[in-house]
């Protein structure tokens, strides 16, 4: 069995930009990968993300569920608690 890897660019907004110390990061993950898996990897790398009130993930500008599968070229974004208005 061959591990196929996908490279994902993760956009960071609001406080997550400060936690990641970047507007975006690139990570490589073994397929298949879903949102729950991505979150685990991120929390391990950036434990401060676990201190937030909430952390949603958007894929291609839509809120994603834990079981949403990720593919190469997806635009992934970290959505900390929103506070517009």
């Amino acid at each position, binding site marked *: 069995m061959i591990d196929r890897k996908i490279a994902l660019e993760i*956009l960071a*907004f*609001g*406080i997550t*930009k*400060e936690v990641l110390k970047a507007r975006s990061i690139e990570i490589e993950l073994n397929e298949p990968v879903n949102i729950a898996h991505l979150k685990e990897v991120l929390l391990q790398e950036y434990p401060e993300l676990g*201190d*937030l*009130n909430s952390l949603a993930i*958007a894929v291609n*500008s*839509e*809120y994603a569920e834990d079981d949403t599968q990720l593919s190469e070229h997806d635009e992934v*974004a970290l*959505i*900390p*608690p*929103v*506070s*517009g*208005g």
Partner: protein
Amino acid sequence: MIRLTKENIDIHQLFEEVNSGSAGGVDIFVGTVRNATKGKEVIALEFEAYEKMAISELQKIVDTVISRWPVQKVAVIHAVGYKKVGEIAVAIAVACPHRNEAFEACRYIIDTLKETVPIWKKEIFHDGEVWVSAHP
């Protein structure tokens, strides 16, 4: 009309966007930058948006409003970038044949915007900055 802008938000222009001879009532909600939060003086706010997604989430809200109420026109405009105390952060205008519908639809938009639209504000104090609602 849905827009994010760095410019000052013009209420008269917003009203003109939704005003038509067929609407009897227009409700406009304006959120401004408050000078204090929890008793602490605020100097300014910085708004950041995931712009593409913010527009699409706002469009969903507007679509819902149009499906639920007999809305004739809707305009939503939200600030991005730095805003000083008293400046406009968000302005929403809804034109309907009858006023109750305009009030309800406008309130729905601002309530839902605050829950779902990926825009963040950072409060800037004399002695630091805080991303609003980020932490418990």
